[in-house]
């Protein structure tokens, strides 16, 4: 079935992955060219604002891929992935805060403004190390990963699945939101972390840095996508699908289902954290609203709209919905939730497999005309 030695390279032998990477690369190139080579004012010019917005969409797309990995392939409907996203975002935010140095309003060499405002006189221990990029970037993956590991260990070990798991993931993100709202937590309370200046020495307000962040997010999405594809096309991926559809049977075959769930859930949480870390420097702020239970539900809607268990469907869903959101909230801010709800109802009724299902159907029709097949003829 595969000639590649490394399981990580297996996706490169798949047509769908190559198409996905090709489209992503083309989009990234196009945006870059239209931003750099076309003079401002020209109708084809892509502004720094649009580049920034596109980067934000791509980070949402990576988040959606992470959710599809656990929901689409493992059957775990996580309604708390926003928490992992936000934690990755906070880890990045802490790094960016410390990069401000003494250029804050209060000019304190070490303490972020909000700590000076709260009359703190020293940095809390958990802020140590975040002035170093390598440490902060490591934490972007490790903090969400560790939370997922502990949470998943407890949940999967006691066989909490289905709707109960969904509910406790909501509780998890809600609890974190309440915690991060508190000033005493040391994460800036309800204002969160903001007023960032530079990342790795590059000015965050310059359009070159924004372009760089957009491209970095595209690369992260490509890598995350390939990693997830490698997982789902491996034997482990097939065990995941087996678990999703018949957990007890899978266990009976000798697979320790809870360990597979924990592994994939943790990988997914780390990808969500990475998405959050790329999101924060592009929007310039991270605050507890990213922990809101509603946001986590929205992510699941993107995946459902795009089409579950395809990965590229998640990307399509995330970009489409967020683009629609940008347009809608500009025109009729109050109507957005109704539009989202309506869209969801329409898709569930008319496109149960999402946009990706529609694409796959058209492709298959084109490829083999009429794909009907009778199981009977072969058994005779």
């Amino acid at each position, binding site marked *: 079935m595969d000639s590649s030695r490394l399981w990580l390279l297996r996706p490169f032998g798949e047509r769908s992955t190559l198409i996905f990477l090709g489209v992503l690369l083309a989009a990234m190139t196009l945006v870059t060219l239209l931003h750099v080579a076309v003079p401002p004012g020209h109708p084809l010019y892509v502004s720094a604002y649009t580049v920034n917005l596109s980067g934000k969409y791509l980070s949402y797309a990576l988040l959606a891929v992470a959710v599809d990995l656990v929901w689409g392939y493992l059957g775990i409907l996580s309604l708390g992935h926003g928490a992992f996203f936000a934690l990755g975002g906070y880890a990045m935010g802490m790094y960016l805060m410390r990069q401000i140095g003494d250029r804050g309003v209060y000019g304190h060499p070490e303490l972020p403004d909000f700590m000076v405002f709260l009359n703190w006189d020293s940095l809390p221990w958990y802020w140590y190390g975040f002035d170093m990029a390598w440490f902060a970037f490591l934490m972007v993956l490790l903090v969400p990963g560790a939370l997922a590991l502990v949470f998943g260990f407890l949940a999967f070990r006691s066989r909490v699945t289905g709707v109960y798991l969904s509910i406790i993931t909501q509780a998890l993100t809600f609890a974190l939101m309440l915690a991060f709202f508190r000033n005493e937590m040391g994460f800036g309370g309800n204002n969160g972390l903001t007023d960032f200046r530079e990342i790795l020495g590059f000015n965050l307000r310059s359009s070159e840095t924004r372009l760089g962040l957009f491209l970095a997010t595209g690369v992260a999405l490509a890598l995350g996508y390939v990693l997830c594809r490698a997982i789902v096309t491996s034997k482990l991926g097939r065990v995941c699908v087996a678990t*999703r559809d018949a957990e007890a049977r899978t266990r009976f075959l000798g697979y*320790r289902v809870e360990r597979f769930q924990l592994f994939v859930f943790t990988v997914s949480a780390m990808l969500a954290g990475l998405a959050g870390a790329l999101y924060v420097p592009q929007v310039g702020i991270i605050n507890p609203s990213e922990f809101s239970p509603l946001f986590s539900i929205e992510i699941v809607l993107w995946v459902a709209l795009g089409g579950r268990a395809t990965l590229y469907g998640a990307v399509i869903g995330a970009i489409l919905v967020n683009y629609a959101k940008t347009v809608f909230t500009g025109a009729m801010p109050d109507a957005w939730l109704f539009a989202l709800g309506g869209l969801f109802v329409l898709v569930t009724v008319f496109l149960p497999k999402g946009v990706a299902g529609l694409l796959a159907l058209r492709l298959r029709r084109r490829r083999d005309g009429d794909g009907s097949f009778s199981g009977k003829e072969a058994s005779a």
Partner: protein
Amino acid sequence: MSILRSLASRDRVFDFLVPVESPVDVRHGPILYLEDVTVSFDGFKAINDLNLTIDDGELRCIIGPNGAGKTTMMDIITGKTRPDSGQVWFGSRHDLLTMNEPEIASLGIGRKFQKPTVFEALTVFENLELAMAADKRILPTLTARINGEIRDRIDEILEIIGLKPLHARPAGILSHGQKQWLEIGMLLMQRPRLLLVDEPVAGMTEQEMERTAELLTGLAGKQSVVVVEHDMGFVRSIARKVTVLHQGSVLAEGSMDQVSSDPRVIEVYLGAEAEEETL
């Protein structure tokens, strides 16, 4: 009680990671030996002084009316239910009453439950791949590759269960009978010494039944097979030694002709069926 026990041993469940050749010793007699086994549920004796001997490579049919204790007997052999008294031996070396479910499974006793469960979203080939005896920890599973040896093994089983032309199709499109065969194939992937098959032809078409009889008779010799069934036509078509179970113990044993002419058997079972048929 047995439920409690299996819950308690949860974290040790299914540690049979490496494919081991079954160490069962059949040089001195049968592959399966049950002596004076009794089980009662709340005072009701579901199995009552049951004696049963299965030879190596034998295909045995067990028949009996509903509630005769056929499924309970399989539960005892696989370690799911503990008898109140009696002996259960696998070969001359393994006392099954001292072992738990996964240990018994790893000895090479495979069981097919009444209701088929296959992974519908996966292909027939992939269903067999997952059932194969292999290192089932996370990293080996992640990096596992399908090499020639594995492919040959799966092809061999596909041939046996007659699903080769459908190997790349999702199991969800299979007919009920084909799912039963796939499930038998999944058991065979684990190279069992003894197969316990509970009511395989329930819900099958006439043709599928014939095919199943062929499949099971083809398996005998290479492994021992115990088939529980109450479709008499099917049992007759297999035409092997038949054991009639009634109220938890053996009522008669012999060829289909012998047992079906036994007056006690006619009274409790065949008679009842004959009456049904004449209705």
